[in-house]
């Protein structure tokens, strides 16, 4: 055994009893037979406190800022041992972990890292992201929210839109215009501030699919502390671009796993129970099963040949998309080229998901026209709402048009 292996093994040996001792039984939902009972608030807090105090909610962040300080190999061990006890790590602020944390580690000063990172790890602060504005849309850099220096503070006026979970967040990281008299990319700064200060108004946004966790946030003479400006004054665009990369990566991740902030779940296979896949060699098409129940079949063959053809096309798309995600990962590992652009996956998954839900509506017929209440099953209502919600897939996180532009320019090298 190499010395690294020995160290890993030692890590595992101290971790295992610690997890056994600190992970409440009610949180071991993946254990055989599931958890004994649903966790109480106190048990959840206990699990968060235990994991947070060791930095395991942000396992690879440096210890000095409250993180776990784990290597990739150690992270792997942590995940294995969590699997062994059957528990998920406690949830802490998604935007804190996936977005702000990496940015602070790269661009923040010592004081900012010390102050903010540990509070993310401990789950004390929920963060939200103040990026889009009503007038800006795809043109993020066209943002108009103004921040004007006033002593130790900046005074902020303007508004943000599509701010996910702002209504349940404590702090916001925000792009603001600190110089209106220079080209638009050169007058933007990146600043953090507390949402619980005077002048902040938060309105959840009602979508065409119903209520959402998107909000519009209005700032009227809001005071942010000048020390919370991250990176150089007017140097925010560099940080913004980096953050968009983190966002795109987390969207691509979400497409594989079904997790993450964007409700894009492109492959039906991903939804099918694993056990069933292991028994049968062929994957299940949920659309086809739905169509079979609703429209009947002639033997195995679905009764409606046109819908059957469309379902086959969707399953084909889904199969090819999944293989392309896999290939992209393998190419990256093999160091072969840049792989297909993340833009392509974002684009294709959005459009495929929209087509899929249109197809699902065709299968349901008027059973897909329910909004709420009796007369429709919860699954039908969910599919109908999902159909409406899916229309946003090709708008949020960069519109399909923006993705097409990016592919044309960066991948194909077509001229401006």
């Amino acid at each position, binding site marked *: 055994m190499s010395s690294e292996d020995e160290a890993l093994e030692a890590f595992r040996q101290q971790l295992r009893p610690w997890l056994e001792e600190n992970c409440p039984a009610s949180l071991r939902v993946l254990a055989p037979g599931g958890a004994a009972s649903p966790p109480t608030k106190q048990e959840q807090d206990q699990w968060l406190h235990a994991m947070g105090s060791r930095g395991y909610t942000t396992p690879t962040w440096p210890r000095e800022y409250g993180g776990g300080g784990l290597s990739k190999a150690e992270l792997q061990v942590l995940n294995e041992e969590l699997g062994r006890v059957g528990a998920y790590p406690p949830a802490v602020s998604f935007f804190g972990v996936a977005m702000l944390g990496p940015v602070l580690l790269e661009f923040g000063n010592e004081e900012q890292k010390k102050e903010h990172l540990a509070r993310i790890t401990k789950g004390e602060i929920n963060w939200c992201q103040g990026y889009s504005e009503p007038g800006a849309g795809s043109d993020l850099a*066209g943002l108009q929210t103004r921040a004007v220096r006033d002593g130790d503070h900046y005074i902020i006026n303007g508004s943000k839109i599509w701010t996910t979970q702002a209504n349940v967040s404590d702090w916001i990281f925000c792009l603001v215009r600190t110089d209106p008299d220079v080209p638009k990319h050169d007058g933007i700064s990146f600043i953090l501030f507390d949402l619980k200060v005077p002048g902040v108004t938060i309105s959840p946004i009602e979508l065409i699919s119903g209520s959402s966790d998107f909000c519009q946030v209005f700032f009227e003479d809001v005071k942010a502390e000048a020390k919370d400006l991250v990176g150089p004054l007017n140097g925010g665009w560099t940080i913004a671009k980096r953050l968009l990369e983190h966002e795109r990566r987390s969207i691509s991740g979400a497409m594989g796993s079904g997790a993450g902030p964007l409700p894009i779940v492109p492959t039906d296979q991903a939804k099918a129970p694993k056990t069933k896949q292991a028994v049968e060699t062929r994957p299940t098409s949920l659309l086809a099963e739905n169509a079979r129940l609703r*429209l009947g079949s002639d033997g195995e063959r679905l009764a409606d040949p*046109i819908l059957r053809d469309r379902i086959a096309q969707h399953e084909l798309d889904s199969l090819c998309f999944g293989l392309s995600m896999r290939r992209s990962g393998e190419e990256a590992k093999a160091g072969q080229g840049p792989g297909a652009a993340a833009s392509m996956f974002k684009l294709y998954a959005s459009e495929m998901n929209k087509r899929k839900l249109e197809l699902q509506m065709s299968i349901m017929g008027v059973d897909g026209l329910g909004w709420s209440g009796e007369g429709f099953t919860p699954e039908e209502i969910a599919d109908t709402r999902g159909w409406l919600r899916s229309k946003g897939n090709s708008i949020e996180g960069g519109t399909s048009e923006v993705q097409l532009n990016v592919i044309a320019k960066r991948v194909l090298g077509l001229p401006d």
Partner: protein
Amino acid sequence: MALVLSEEQQFLRDTAAEFLDEKSPVTHLRELRDGKEASGFSRPLWKEMSELGWAGILVPEEYGGSGLGFAELGVVIEECGRRLSPYPLLSTVVLGASAVLLGGSESQRKDILPGVCAGETILALASQEQGRFHPYQVESRAERSGDGYRITGEKKFVLDGHVADQLIVVARTAGNPGGRDGLTLFLVDSAVAGLEIKRSNMVDSRNAARVRLDGVEVGADRVLGEVGAGAEILDPLHDRACVALSAELLGISLEVFERTVEYLKTREQFGVLIGSFQGLKHRAAEMFCELELAKSIVLDALRAIDEKRLDSARLASAAKARTSDAASLVTREGVQMHGGIGMTDEEEIGLFLKRAKAAELSFGDAAFHRDCFAGLMGF
């Protein structure tokens, strides 16, 4: 008949547009929705519309109507489509009055039609039993019982069913589900014993109900048309519903398209109007072509019914297929081109998307009607 509006029809259109702009713009639908108005529309306003002659537009003057036709009705419905006006034109005028005209005895006509024309009687067709439209997939049964019939079954998507005074119920007196033979239409009073009507909360904020008939007794004089030959009425009724829905889908599509083009001319991104992007321009131009074709087929399909042409059914399917696809395209593009704002409930585009989908899936979608069209072409 020419594929252009006559002067009278243009006048009718202008009058309808003016009236609806004042009394039933899109905000009216939103108010009804958010106010949780139980009937789903304003009865007094329907009365006003009836006074304009809309309720009796298909009904001969002898029964209190204006004796116009589908060419005129289409003009009104298109304008209603542009404003998402949720009034019972389809349920009561197109389906209800047509059914009575097509199959009703003289006494049934005299009994029902004057009330319809006056905007006082609401009718509803209770036929559909499963999600995807199939005209003869009826399991509800009517059995002889004394001098009359006893009807048992369940219906869904009964348009305006929860406010209807009379239902036209399709039930089997013979044959098996899916078969064209053996269907019979019954006039059923909505207050009759054994009838349960529940409003469904629909995505398009329009009115539809589930209806349960638990041994409902009706007299033999309540049969509409011939016993067992209900399909003879149902077929032209469905054609008419399709043509009316096509006119509505056309109105929706034109409105969404015009709003979207206008948005492209006013919304700036990256320092320019987004309508200057060729990618969006080409898509807009393609939609324009689709809508021009849709306009033509709707006009001809409406006229085919008035002229009692032999190709009415084929044109009805053609129009429904065409406008379903066109409206689906235009409303999807409308939301996409409006961007994030198009996804909010506050913006009206989403309301059009919802209604277009409901109209698309009502009485057969585009694939269903291409199948019918092919059959009527003989292949």
